[in-house]
């Protein structure tokens, strides 16, 4: 059945569909931590098994992102996300019936792969293709903000669900909740009907990959995104323990994390808005520098209630704001046609950074008994990332520029 639709409505449909998709998928993915204790108790194993499964899930998102990105660019974002949703539902059903350690590892890997299919690479690609260049970065920021909101709205809801029904039954309900995404994935199909989606369509995947890897700008952007993953995961995993070590009142940890979450939503919109008005690569350089300065100030500043909460607010603004800017640059330079795949590759680098940030943080703390060294590494990496963004050329490659004329 062919549906004809007003070109003006396409961006709104895709943004709403993509926003809901990220809200649900981010929400479900971040709820998995709640199952650590019940599943560990059920399997009668140590926490290491679940920890390994969760780490594998994160890695699978990174591996799956470029793959689903390529599928999305080749066969359509709607179809790629539908496959991802199916994998998430299967993974959740498997997780609800775990009997062995293999089950939990397999279920988490499946959920991770599926989450890549209905995650940022596919959704941002669809949004990037649908919206006009004037408001593109803001639109990418809006869908990311919806995803951020999902993290903070779905998780407490899942927590209550586990309390009301059993953990196993709650996973069944969660798979019904995931099924909501099927309806909204249809909206992503409209991205192919937009006028701006045609740019760059004459290129093959192989040619697109070759062009991207030969581009200094793409390589620098991908390396910079590694630092983003490193910072975000290190702080997320180790900040509560760091606050506890400083002997601050109990309520500070809760409020600090709440303010990070709150300003994360605002910050993504804020940088999305700025990205349409100022140079995106300069904003990214500023963002990474601000992160380093923030860490630097935090190292030297006395840790009081107010300084910790201020740190949390500023950190929240800088938290996921890199995403609309990074994906925005990819669209500007290479065009929207292969954006999902190329963003997926950059995101893979982000996930490796995430893994290292989490692991090195713990390793250095265990070795030296303090987080000082890892804070300094974070400061240095931030400034290096800022410098790496300076030579990025934020203009279309020759092939795409010729097509635009």
């Amino acid at each position, binding site marked *: 059945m062919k549906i004809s639709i007003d070109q003006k409505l396409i961006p709104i449909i895709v943004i709403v569909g993509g926003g809901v998709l990220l809200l649900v998928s981010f929400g479900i993915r971040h*709820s998995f931590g709640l199952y650590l204790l019940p599943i560990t108790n059920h399997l009668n194993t140590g926490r290491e098994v679940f920890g390994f499964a969760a780490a594998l899930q994160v890695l699978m998102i990174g591996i799956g992102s470029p793959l689903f990105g390529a599928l999305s660019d080749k066969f359509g974002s709607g179809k790629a996300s539908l496959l991802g949703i199916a994998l998430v539902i299967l993974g959740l059903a498997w997780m609800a019936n775990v009997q062995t350690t293999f089950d939990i590892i397999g279920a988490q890997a499946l959920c991770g792969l599926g989450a890549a299919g209905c995650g940022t690479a596919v959704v941002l690609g669809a949004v990037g293709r649908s919206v006009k260049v004037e408001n593109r970065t803001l639109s990418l920021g809006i869908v990311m903000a919806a995803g951020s909101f999902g993290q903070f709205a779905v998780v407490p809801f899942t927590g209550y669900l586990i309390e009301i029904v059993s953990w196993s039954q709650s996973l069944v309900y969660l798979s019904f909740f995931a099924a909501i995404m099927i309806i909204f994935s249809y909206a992503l199909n409209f991205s192919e009907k937009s006028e701006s989606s045609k740019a760059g369509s004459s290129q093959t995947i192989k040619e697109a990959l070759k062009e991207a890897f030969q581009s200094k700008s793409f390589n620098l952007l991908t390396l910079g995104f590694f630092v983003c993953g490193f910072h975000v995961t290190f702080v997320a995993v180790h900040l509560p323990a760091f606050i506890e070590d400083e002997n601050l009142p109990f309520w500070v940890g809760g409020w600090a994390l709440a303010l990070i979450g709150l300003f994360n939503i605002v910050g993504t919109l804020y940088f999305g808005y700025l990205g349409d008005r100022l140079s995106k690569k300069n904003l990214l350089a500023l963002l990474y520098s601000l992160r380093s300065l923030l860490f630097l100030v935090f190292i030297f500043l006395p840790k009081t209630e107010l300084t910790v909460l201020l740190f949390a607010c500023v950190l929240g603004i800088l938290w996921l704001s890199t995403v609309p800017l990074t994906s925005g640059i990819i669209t500007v330079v290479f065009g929207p046609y292969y954006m999902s795949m190329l963003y997926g590759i950059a995101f893979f680098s982000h996930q490796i950074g995430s893994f290292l940030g989490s692991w090195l943080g713990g390793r250095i703390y265990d070795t030296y008994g303090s987080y000082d060294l890892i804070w300094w590494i974070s400061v240095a990496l931030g400034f290096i990332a800022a410098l790496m963004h300076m030579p990025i050329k934020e203009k279309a490659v020759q092939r795409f520029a010729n097509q635009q004329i």
Partner: protein
Amino acid sequence: MAIIIAAIALLLCWLWIEITLFLINKNSRELDNTKKVSYAKFIWVLRSIIVLLFVITTIYMYFFENIRLQKAIEYCLGIIR
């Protein structure tokens, strides 16, 4: 006390957002912004979001157990102890 300190931190940070957005809007007026989302519209949406989220968080912190929210947010951020 907790809410007052959190509100001060939020206001200080919000001040920074307001000032930077105002200055950037002022300096980019000469560019062709007709097709872009207007500054006035955007800033009011952003203000509404921050007020709404802060009120919800405060209510939750005040009426429910702080530890429950903290645990939930820790899970959100991928923290597994």
